[in-house]
């Protein structure tokens, strides 16, 4: 009894102390912290400077907010789970957020819940659309915008540029065969084919493979190394950390890699260019619309070349022949809708793509 009592006492003391602490805090919360943050970003797994989705998105927010003089801040969830993401969103809302940007498809479930919990807050979900836990219900509420990208255009640019730069033996290593990855791959094949036609080439070899996951594994690295040993000059590493395994193999074989999603040139000297998604551009564009009271709520937007939704980072690319002028021409054609690219809905598998010069070897 004595022990229980003394422990109770201890708890009372601790919580009493906190109560004393919180009382004065509760009243002057507003004046004590005049800074609220209007634009908030919740980081996905990883840090803010992850050279990937977090960083790309955050750069877009900073660029827009600095220009428009709007307060902004990022919040880090305690862990990677729907509940933790929701808790971070709650923090952001408490911190005065009016619009919350979330990068990565892992936010699809949290935003599905959050869009109902916070009807007065707007959500921008990058690279995904809200759905429930078992994918049975997809719903984008009025206060939410889901943004995806025309990956096939990005892949097209990469394939086109690689062939134009003189590479004739190409490789594609996708992660899991999900629609986004397939679109990248199909675009890559068709871009290479068009470039070959323009250059009058007779044959381009392209090895094509899905690793089945998004992790860096020794198996991926071994396969990439064997491709390089068989003469492959450049591999498009398309799918999370798969690219890192390809880079390791390329570093050993002194060959080249094409990056994905964000500008990966800093990760390895072997990266000649990256098939980028326009994270920064799309965020800036939607934020601009938001502040112009034209928030495209309830929509699932697809960002393509016309809205700078795809690009190659020409300033950091290591091309020998392919120039900025060449790039601008093909990009303008894409943006103008002059180029038709078959995507995952148009061809059952990669060998059925309408290409004539590129010989696709599908590796299972």
């Amino acid at each position: 009894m004595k022990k229980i009592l003394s422990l109770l006492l201890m708890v009372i003391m601790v919580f009493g102390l906190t109560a004393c602490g919180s009382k004065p805090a509760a009243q002057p919360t507003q004046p004590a912290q005049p800074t609220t943050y209007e634009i908030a970003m919740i980081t996905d797994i990883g840090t803010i400077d992850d050279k990937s989705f977090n960083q790309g998105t955050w750069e877009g927010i900073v660029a827009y907010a600095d220009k428009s003089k709007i307060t902004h801040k990022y919040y880090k969830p305690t862990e990677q789970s729907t509940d933790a993401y929701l808790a971070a969103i709650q923090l952001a809302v408490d911190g005065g957020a009016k619009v919350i940007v979330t990068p990565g498809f892992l936010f699809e479930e949290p935003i599905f819940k959050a869009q109902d919990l916070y009807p007065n807050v707007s959500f921008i979900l990058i690279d995904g659309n809200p759905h429930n836990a078992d994918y049975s219900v997809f719903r984008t509420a009025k206060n939410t915008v889901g943004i995806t990208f025309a990956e096939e255009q990005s892949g097209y640019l990469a394939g086109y540029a690689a062939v134009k730069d003189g590479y004739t033996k190409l490789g594609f290593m996708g992660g899991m065969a999900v629609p986004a990855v397939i679109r990248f791959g199909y675009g890559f094949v068709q871009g290479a084919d068009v470039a070959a036609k323009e250059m009058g080439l007779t044959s381009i070899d392209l090895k094509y493979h899905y690793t089945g996951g998004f992790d860096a594994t020794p198996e991926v690295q071994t396969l990439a190394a064997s491709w390089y040993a068989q003469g492959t000059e450049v591999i498009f590493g398309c799918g999370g950390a798969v690219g890192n395994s390809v880079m390791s193999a390329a570093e050993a074989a002194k060959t080249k890699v094409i990056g994905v999603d964000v500008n990966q040139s800093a990760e390895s000297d072997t990266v000649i260019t990256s098939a980028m998604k326009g994270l920064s551009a799309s965020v800036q564009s939607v934020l601009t619309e938001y502040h112009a009271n034209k928030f495209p709520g309830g929509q699932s937007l697809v960002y393509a070349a016309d809205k700078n939704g795809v690009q190659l980072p020409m300033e950091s690319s290591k091309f020998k022949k392919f120039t900025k002028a060449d790039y601008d021409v093909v990009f303008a054609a894409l943006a103008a809708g002059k180029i038709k690219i078959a995507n995952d809905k148009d061809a059952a598998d990669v060998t059925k793509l309408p290409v004539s010069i590129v010989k696709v070897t599908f590796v299972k």
Partner: protein
Amino acid sequence: MKTFRKILLGEEFNRATASIIAILIGLLVGFLVLLISNSAEALAGFKIILSGGFSTGAKGMGQVLYFATPLILTGLSVGFAFKTGLFNIGTPGQFIIGAFAAVYIGVTCTFLPAPLHWIAALLAATIAGGLWALIPGILKAYLNVHEVISSIMMNYIGMYLANYLTKSTIYDIRKAQSLNVADSAVLPKGGLDYIFYNDLGGVKDLSTVNSGIWIAIVVAILIYFIINKTTFGYELKACGFNQNASNYAGINAKRSIVLSMVIAGMLAGLGGGLLYLSGASGRHLKVVDMLAVEGFNGIPVALLGLSNPIGIIFSAFIIAYITQGGNYLQTLNFAPEVIDIIIACIIYFSAFALYFRKLLPFLIKKGRGDRQ
């Protein structure tokens, strides 16, 4: 009134006081770090840490309980081992192996009906954690290999094994994490969903907390009774205090060491199970090369709770409470990374400051002066 005075002068109170002083010292250090990182908002930040889980309403308090659940178990694991003279630094390994076992049963054994399914998953977690501690226990008892070394080894083996097994059996490749466990394997809310939620315009924003916290508290009380009231606990403690004298008294010290380690491992394993059976929106197993933080945090929890199971419940609450408050610091202009440092400072300085417990009686005696 008389009993109250007795409490004030009692041993237990002295210990509780020492823990409170330790926490205050930890908070003071935390405040210094706050001052260094952002002096303008240090005071406001400190108030947020103190208001802890209350900062985010009833849901926030629910989250405190949710975070406290695995800490109670790993704290018990470390504390129980301490009481029996062992330093179980293998909690991260036991924890993650237990977590894997629970999730594996939760994902695969879908033929089991609801209460049986999660009970089976928790049992699997407990057994797996116990097995993971069995090896260091045997090495210690029969080959005199120090348990710290073998358990650190087992931590890494456990982490990589859990990674490997997760990836090869129950992996959701798209999300790069374990598959959702079946609904029948998710721990029931145990009535807590009526308390811990925030009302957002008619919509319930539920806390993750579930009946896991009840289980943790019941287990802590159970361990308290085992340690303090049973002949079994008497034997285990005796071996912890003095192995020679235990042999002299006819206690099988080797057996006691193995059993102590196994029970400690079972507790940590159960902690893993409780944390990871929280449903689709809760925690999932990741394939990361990092030892489970909840495992290591069992050490400061046990220190702060003075290895007393009931004390451990409260110290786990306090640490979860401060952690939750720290998370809320993000509303101020503190970088999330700095916040991690601040919280770590508070927790670990609190644990260190327990050396005050040794100083306290001395200081009181000195204060009393010549009356002695």
